[in-house]
């Protein structure tokens, strides 16, 4: 397979419609360290993109560039076909890009409703409008079928890991968001809870959101991803429909930066834990 140092290997038939979000030629360096080098990435609506890469590959930096925490040095971000500049997290939120970080960013002492509305509380006559906030939070949770919490007014500290993740995801989709970035959503979760979160990710996709899941766990990636992108030392080394990859090829790309895609017909599907 021939390799363009900067470009990804384009494989398979690309999505027919224009992707909701496109990144082109993203560069980012911190001092002398080049964290991202000419990264291209498509995030189509209604699909889950799994972003893979070894430690230090630049996954988190890429997420932060999209989320407005960092700014890319060079490159273009297109949102719904238009070039956009994302300088702050507020800019990202304004476009409808929400990020669920690995540490979830929930305040343990606040209850579910309070966490979901943190920073965007609704007011009535200058005071918090708890009633409408509670109703809206309950609606969002039930639309995502997050029904395992006993009371929507229980403090987040009393929730299990999977429930906390669900609350963090629900918080992200409350705001008519169009793109949701999930950083290691299943790390530190047990099997049942991982299944619960992956179901939630599928529901986001079914709502037509563009979802990006960063994960070390290839089982999870192959379980939910429609598309897979692999970063290696700051370069996007492979990107395409998940069916073009198998576990072996993803690991090769992650560890060496080069690899072979899965044989088109009749290959052993050990990647298909779907």
């Amino acid at each position, binding site marked *: 397979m021939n390799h363009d140092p900067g470009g990804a290997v384009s494989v398979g038939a690309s999505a027919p419609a224009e992707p909701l979000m496109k990144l082109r030629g993203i560069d980012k360096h911190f001092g002398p360290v080049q964290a991202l080098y000419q990264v291209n990435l498509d995030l189509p609506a209604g699909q889950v993109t799994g972003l893979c890469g070894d430690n230090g590959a630049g996954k988190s930096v890429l997420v932060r560039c999209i989320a407005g925490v960092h700014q890319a040095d060079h490159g273009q971000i297109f949102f719904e076909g238009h070039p956009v500049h994302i300088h702050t*997290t*507020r800019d990202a939120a304004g476009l409808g890009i929400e990020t669920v*970080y690995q*540490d*979830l*960013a*929930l*305040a*343990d*002492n*606040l209850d579910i409703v*309070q*966490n979901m509305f*943190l*920073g*965007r*509380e609704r*007011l009535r006559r*200058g*005071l*918090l409008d*708890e*009633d409408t906030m*509670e*109703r809206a939070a*309950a609606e969002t949770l*039930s639309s995502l079928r997050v*029904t*395992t*919490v*006993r*009371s*929507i*007014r*229980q*403090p987040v*500290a*009393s*929730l*299990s*890991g*999977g429930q*906390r993740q669900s609350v963090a995801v629900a918080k992200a989709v409350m705001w008519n968001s169009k793109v949701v970035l999930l950083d290691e959503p299943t790390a*530190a*979760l*047990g*099997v*049942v*809870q991982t299944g*619960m979160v992956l179901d939630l990710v599928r529901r986001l996709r079914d709502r037509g959101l563009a979802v990006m899941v960063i994960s070390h*766990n*290839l*089982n999870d990636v192959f379980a939910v991803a429609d598309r897979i992108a692999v970063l290696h030392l700051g370069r996007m080394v492979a990107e395409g429909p998940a069916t073009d990859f198998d*576990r*072996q090829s993803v*690991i090769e790309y992650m*560890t060496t930066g080069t690899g072979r895609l899965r044989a088109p017909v009749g290959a052993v599907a*050990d990647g298909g834990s779907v």
Partner: protein
Amino acid sequence: MAGRETDTPIAATASGTAATEPMVDLTAASEVTATDVPPEILAQSLGQYLRAWGQRIRSGDSGVLPVLLGIVIVAVAFQIANGKFLSPQNLVNLFEQSSIYMLLAMAEIFALLLGEIDLSVGLVMGLGAVVVAEEVQPAGLNWPWWLAILVALLICAGVGAIQGTLVARVKMPSFIVTLGGLLVLEGVAIIVLGGSLVGIGNSHFSNEVFLYNLFWGQFDPAVSWILLIVVGVIAAGWEWYRSARRRRSGLVAPPASLTALKIIVAAAAGILVVALCNVNRAHFGTIEGLPYIIPIVLVVLATWTMLLQRTRFGRYVYAIGGNPEAARRAGIKLPTIRTWGFVLGALTAGIAGVLFASWQVSITTNIIKEANSYVLLAVAAAVIGGTSLFGGRGKTIHGVLGGLVIGGIYNGLFLLGVTSEWIAIVVALVLLAAGTIDVLSRRGAQPRA
């Protein structure tokens, strides 16, 4: 084949995660089966509500019941030891004494909720007391009482603004800032005092009389009852209306029986307090009626409760105390909220200062130095009341109830003839016990994976 080798560790990781947390999976599974009912229907009976409350305690938020229990224990123990403890005269005395602790505890709660500590509240109180007393001196500034109080409170709030800025923007530890602050304030207060003594006990000057009466004055017994009925009916009606409305629209609300119980308990407490205050408590002549100090504390309590529970500012104070990083990512301006927290804490300490001046009648260098020891009582009252030392947990009411416990211990031991050094040791032990409970309940609240 290379594929097998690389494949195994990943599978092992996944099953390893599962194997280390079998408990979590079991819990999750049982929750999934039990939950097709919408969550808000679940907590409608009293029993369910009590269970939810137990859950809240385990999450590190104990609420008011433990401190109410503490108050009962203190009352019963001292009454057994000395029959005078629960006499109306002594109880009113106890309320008056405790009011200073209550106000200072409410001042401290702002810092504690933010996950900080304010060691200077005692001397902010001292400064406020000296300033307000100096301002009304007929031979000096001779300001009217309202201007004197206003300026004293502004000065105290200004001290809070300086300390808050150093903590929030310069990012110095609040422990150091307020430790330095209390030393500076002690010096400043003594300088303002001018080396001698300043008093507000002269009954010929109306401004001094006004200040004196803030602590020592009281309503007429009939007015006390009317006040209780008016405030009580409004508060009870509002509480009932609000929880009934939430129940009707299917939101999480306490069951009607619990709301009724709360109202009945509060009404009984109110009637008891007014009845006690309306007993003549003078040795000679007549002193009866509700002391002004009780409604003053209640107004501060209501205002700060409203601010902390029902406004964005209050919500952000809790969020910062719970998880500053989450607050920052939610777009909350941390330095602004933190600074205002210190301003409001110092303002509350200033209110305590005005009443402290009224209580002491005359302020001396020794009294200013003594004011410093009140900061420990303030922290103790807040923590005994159920406020966490680790931020984000606690309410203003906890300061009031904790202040009552501290006041009760002081008063009770004093009645028993215990000397002040032993009283200090007992209060310290109670503080340590409350701190231990705080630490343990916090440990129980660690997030479960």
